[in-house]
């Protein structure tokens, strides 16, 4: 080992093309990484984290270019070197672990074939040796059945396992540097822990340097030796992890640290006929039931958070409620009256009373309609508004969601930011003047600061219009922030429900306990401690 840093990026400028123009994405960032060191790269979406990470490999995505700066990797000037040289380094000495392993594994080939490809192509080891090595690394990544799992296709392996297999694949040539690009973002909290610990272990075992990109502070706190904060292509600050956590210098960093401030006032306890009630619902697709005898109530002016991991059935419950899925047993009541199970049988008035806000505003807003039509349509349909009255109404709604009507009324969804789109989704739901709104993971695709704004808005509107919310989420922090009542679901069943204070404080149902304990905390020692605790419980 020499004293020279493994990776030294100086004054990196990267531009992206829109039409004929080049727009700066990274505006002169320096980055230095020593051998064996893990650097956390943190920032909101659009901060340029991934772009910078890829630039460390001398790589830019299509439509981007590195317009200035220098990347020195172990004495090699990556940007000045030939295409062939860079290609030889990639995979062998610098490896990459992508955000979504499910999308980044080629669906057409088995895991082992994709694993062995890098060492064989780079001439590091022959195929047979690489296969044996793969089994060894799969084992170290704590994958079940390490001898066999490689012979499966990506779609036959779960998301968490794929992410570990991808890390193993990145390790195949024992690179000096690995870029982790949000490797756990797409995973459930309980799975995330396994992957995090596996990654941390293997990086430590091989003394590999890493750049760990994430938007989640708590995660980066567990993984990184140093943290660099990016904002819109600029570096905000950089410091060793503990130092940064203890005393962030810059204002922006401080706001990042302080985002989870929203707290809903405690509401009076529910009484009387529930606004919406699910009674003994069993439902599913085909013969396999996804929901098994699910019952819960939602009262006026209250927010019920339905919590669970993917596959728990929380979205299915919403589909039954809206009438998109007809249950095989049980019924849905609205203000004590049973609703027809099929939405096509429901009256326009019944449809109007229950509105929905979707997780992804990108797929739930028709990309070809302008806000005027998107928001105006429910008002036009349900309330019969026309012409000037309709225009007035749309403007009012835009004001409610804090978008300047004159500026936004004739925009397309594609001309809005993520948070603005989600606001439009809210306005569309409000336009029908409903009593009840289903919010399906409305903040999970958003950056924390933006999500915070959305939660505040929802809270305000609830008070203003006497709304009841059913809030579907997997994020405990959101539950803490917004819920009055909590319903915890696991594999189609309600495992625990009640007022927030009761559910979130011990004693817990074991599954609730697992969920709660798996939420990363800002403490850099949290992961180590948690793993130790769990190991103790398992032993003891």
């Amino acid at each position, binding site marked *: 080992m020499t004293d020279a840093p493994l990776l030294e990026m100086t004054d990196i400028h990267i531009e992206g093309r829109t039409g004929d123009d080049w727009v700066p994405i990274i505006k002169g960032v320096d980055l230095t990484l020593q051998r064996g060191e893990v650097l956390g790269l943190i920032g909101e979406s659009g901060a340029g984290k991934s772009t910078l990470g890829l630039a460390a*490999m001398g790589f830019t995505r299509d439509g981007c270019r590195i317009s200035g700066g220098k990347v020195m990797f172990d004495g090699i000037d990556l940007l000045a070197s030939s295409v062939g040289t860079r290609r030889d380094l990639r*995979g062998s000495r610098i490896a*990459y672990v992508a955000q979504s392993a499910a999308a*980044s*594994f*080629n669906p*057409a080939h088995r895991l082992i074939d994709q694993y062995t*490809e890098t060492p064989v192509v780079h001439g590091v080891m022959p195929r047979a040796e690489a296969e044996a090595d793969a089994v060894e690394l799969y084992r170290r990544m704590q994958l079940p059945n390490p001898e066999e799992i490689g012979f499966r296709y990506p779609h*036959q392996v779960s998301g968490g396992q794929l992410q570990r297999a991808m890390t193993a694949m990145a390790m195949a040539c024992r690179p000096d540097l690995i870029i982790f690009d949000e490797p756990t973002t797409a995973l459930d909290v309980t799975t995330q822990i396994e992957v995090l610990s596996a990654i941390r272990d293997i990086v430590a075992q091989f003394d590999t340097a890493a750049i760990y990109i994430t938007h989640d502070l708590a995660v980066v706190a567990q993984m990184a030796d140093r943290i660099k904060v990016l904002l819109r292509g600029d570096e905000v600050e950089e410091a060793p992890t503990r130092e940064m956590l203890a005393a962030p210098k810059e204002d922006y960093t401080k706001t990042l640290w302080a985002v989870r401030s929203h707290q809903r006032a405690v509401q009076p306890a529910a009484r009387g006929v529930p606004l919406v009630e699910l009674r003994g619902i069993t439902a599913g697709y085909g013969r396999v039931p996804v929901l098994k005898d699910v019952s819960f109530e939602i009262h006026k002016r209250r927010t019920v958070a339905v919590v669970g991991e993917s596959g728990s059935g929380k979205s299915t419950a919403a589909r039954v409620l809206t009438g998109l899925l007809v249950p095989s047993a049980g019924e849905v009541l609205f203000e004590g009256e049973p609703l027809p199970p099929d939405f096509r049988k429901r009256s326009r008035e019944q449809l109007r009373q229950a509105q929905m806000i979707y997780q992804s505003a990108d797929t739930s807003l028709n990309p070809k309609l302008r806000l005027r039509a998107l928001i105006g349509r429910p008002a036009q349909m349900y309330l019969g508004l026309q012409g000037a009255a309709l225009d007035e109404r749309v403007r009012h709604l835009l004001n409610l969601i804090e978008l300047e009507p004159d500026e936004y009324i004739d925009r397309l969804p594609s001309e809005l930011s993520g948070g603005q789109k989600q606001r439009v989704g809210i306005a569309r739901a409000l336009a029908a003047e409903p009593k009840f709104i289903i919010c399906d993971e409305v903040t999970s695709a958003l950056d924390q600061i933006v999500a915070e704004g959305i939660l505040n808005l929802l809270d305000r509107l609830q008070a203003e219009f006497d709304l009841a919310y059913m809030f579907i989420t997997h994020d405990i922090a959101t539950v803490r922030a917004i819920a009055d009542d909590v319903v915890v679901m696991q594999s189609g069943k309600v495992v625990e429900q009640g007022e927030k204070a009761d559910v979130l404080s011990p004693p817990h149902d074991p599954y609730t306990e697992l969920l709660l304990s798996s939420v990363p905390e800002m403490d850099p020692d949290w992961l180590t401690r948690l793993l130790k605790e769990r190991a103790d419980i398992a032993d003891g």
Partner: protein
Amino acid sequence: MSELWMMIGKRLLYGLLTLFIVSVIIFGASEMLPGDQAQALLGQSATPETLAALREQLGLNDPAPVRYWNWLAGAMSGDFGISTSNQRPIADLISGRLYNTMFLALYAATLAVPLSLVLGLLAALWRNSIFDRVANASALTSISFPEFFVAYILIVWLAQGGHFTSLARIRENTTFVQRLDMTFLPALTLTLVVTAHMMRMTRAAIINLMASPYIEMARLKGLSPLRVVLRHALPNALAPIITVVALNLAYLITGVVAVEVVFTYPGLGQLMVNSVADRDMPVVQAISLIFASAYVLLNLLADVLSTLSNPRLRHRR
């Protein structure tokens, strides 16, 4: 795997239904055709008496549903009847032609499919290069010329120069190699006609995948562009490519009447057009069914191959 068999079974049933609908449509259409076979056979020489006598002899006086039923009953038992024009069993009449049609289709496909795949792959690999643009523009040009016109140009260029024959005179004693030589120009014409479509589709299918995360991953593994395209993009682009190849194969079997006419190649297309003109309905029906079956089977084959090319469908969890 059993799901695949289920799919094949279901699709075959659908196929039979399709064939049935086709036979009804064709029969209905031929009923609506002005004039009948007696008139067609006698042409300008027809007199009312000879027409009546010929109609009687040909069995054209039965009501349409009866004739359809007779035909259907025969066809179900594998007997397509005899050509009413010259009393030849339709099976005899068609079998030779069917062989010729299949020969030409396969010949053209053997030239066109590899060519278009290679061109499509290269165009995708070097997209927006001069090669890509030239290949694209010439492909578009070649599909915008009518087939018979392409054939004439090839004849002027290759046959008048004495390189190849412009007349596909297939005899019983023609050897396979002679056949290849004789049918080179028709096969080449068809190749030019279908290559463009398949090439553009191959290119599009691959480029469509080039933005996928797993392609980026492959590039970040330090693989060469060729390997990225061949090993990582191509296997995932197979389904649309197979579909378009099947569609073009079906076209090569069913849609080449103009080329057959220009090269006087005795294929099914000419026989079909001829039989329509002669109102020889049993022959028209039989050929329609052959064409429809080719279409159905090739589509089925494409779906089966697409399924097999997709590990998600091949291996369930």
